[in-house]
């Protein structure tokens, strides 16, 4: 029987880039790259639902999430202080399946970099990293430490490749690509990869239960309706229909 709920103490919670926060918690946490937790940092019934956040790092009974300030829930999360409590449910979802013998690239867009740090770390220096940002890049040190090669794009330039991350990558150089980011980005890579390169994408959707029982987060796939939380969040891109 799994233990689903974990109450964790905040070790650190800080803004690491404009509107981007990293929170580190202490607790008996488990999980693989690509898996996520449902996170709640408040007691009241509003906000009602927990927020899905990908594992960005786990080590020594500590877990980190990197999150973008969006609405009510992430605002609550950003406001909590050291030693306060956060409720976690998880680890949830399938996570990435990796074959270390293949030539691999990781592609992220914006906050989609969060789970990829943990993926890179787990397969230390084994993968090339392509990270795209709207403005100022973040988590660069972590990428540098654990990727084979690092390529950075920013829509604002700021000394990096000015433009989209998809302009940096030659998909044919790789056997397999792992991608996480906004749907237009995933769609663009899917188009580039076509049937040549294997592509695994981490999908997002609005969630209620996070464990596969409410059918709130389903997406249409070539193999029928699939639950992002339970059957995903990582899907073979060939399965997914990309809408915008």
């Amino acid at each position, binding site marked *: 029987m799994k233990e689903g709920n974990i109450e964790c103490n905040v070790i650190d919670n800080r803004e690491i880039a404009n509107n981007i926060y990293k929170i580190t918690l202490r607790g008996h946490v488990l999980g693989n790259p690509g898996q996520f937790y449902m996170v709640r940092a408040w007691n009241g019934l509003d906000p009602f639902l927990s927020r899905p956040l990908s594992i960005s790092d786990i080590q020594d009974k500590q877990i980190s999430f990197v999150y973008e300030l969006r609405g009510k829930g992430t605002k609550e999360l950003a406001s909590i202080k050291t030693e306060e409590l956060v409720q976690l449910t998880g680890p949830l979802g399938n996570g990435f399946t990796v074959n270390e013998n293949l030539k691999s690239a990781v592609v992220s867009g914006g906050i989609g970099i969060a789970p990829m740090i943990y993926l890179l770390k787990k397969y230390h220096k084994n993968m090339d990293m392509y990270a795209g940002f709207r403005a100022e890049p973040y988590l660069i040190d972590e990428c540098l430490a654990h990727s084979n090669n690092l390529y950075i794009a920013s829509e604002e330039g700021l000394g990096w490749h000015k433009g989209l991350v998809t302009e940096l990558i030659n998909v044919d150089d790789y056997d397999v690509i792992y991608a996480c980011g906004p749907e237009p980005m995933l769609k663009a890579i899917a188009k580039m990869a076509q049937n040549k390169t294997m592509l695994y994408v981490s999908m997002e959707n609005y969630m209620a239960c996070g464990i596969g029982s409410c059918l709130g987060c389903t997406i249409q796939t070539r193999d029928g309706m699939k639950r992002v939380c*339970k059957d995903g969040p990582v899907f073979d891109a060939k399965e997914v229909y990309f809408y915008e």
Partner: protein
Amino acid sequence: MNSTVEFLGINFKNPVIAASGTFGYGKEYDEYFDISILGGISTKGLTLHEKIGNLGRRIYETPSGLMNSIGLQNPGINRFIEDELPFLLKKDIVILANLGGDSIEEYVLGAKKLDETDIPIIELNISCPNVKEGGMAFGIDEKVAYEVVKEVRMATKKKLVVKLSPNAKDISKMAQACVKAGADALSLVNTFNALAIDINKRKPIFNNITAGLSGPCIKPIALRIVYEVKKAVDVPIIGIGGIMDYEDAIEFIMAGATLIQVGSANFRDIYASKKIVEGIEEFMKKEKISNLKEITGIIGGK
């Protein structure tokens, strides 16, 4: 002292049922706790044929609640019986087969199929739109509801619980019509018809425009409805709507519910239903209640 409840001659080891659509077919929660600890489980709504459900956004959070527009996604009764039922039958838990449909014929055929299983109770969800009657939901007008309940009643020997929609025009008359048509019991409430708008896109959030509101936000209204319907009919009632903890559950019981269902609370906390079972038992101990009957409907009214 124990929290056993007899309901239509069926023994529930406690009054807590996992509500339809919030608990799948039990498997996912059973990864976290043995669902046999619960009194019962109402399956995700079943229809005669497979349904892929609604496209577009399905979940939207609201203050102390959520709206959903799942659209009865389910594998159809046949595949449910093959793929999901065996697991549930192995559990020591009363199964309610939640049955949906778009037409009276579909309901009747569905009920007939379920009649052949070992499931003891059919929970008839009459909130679905009635395509034949011009899109009006069975759950709104008591005359339409009477028809469907009567037909389903004839199609099955199972215990028949009719699940009422709070959107009914006159919920007491609706309840009476369903009982007259042969319902053994009533469960209420289903979700409230509600609306949310994306003000930047200037469009409704949901493809179907409206969607169903559930969660603690609706509890005070759901509780009033249970109280009101209890006064109007003589059959047992399953209370549903925003139950988050044992205190809420006890409120529904005191308002007249024999059993209760836990829905959206399962999303806040995977152990919510389990904790409610435990809380009810502690409350009974503390208050020296030896059988829940002692407090069922105790606030009176009838």
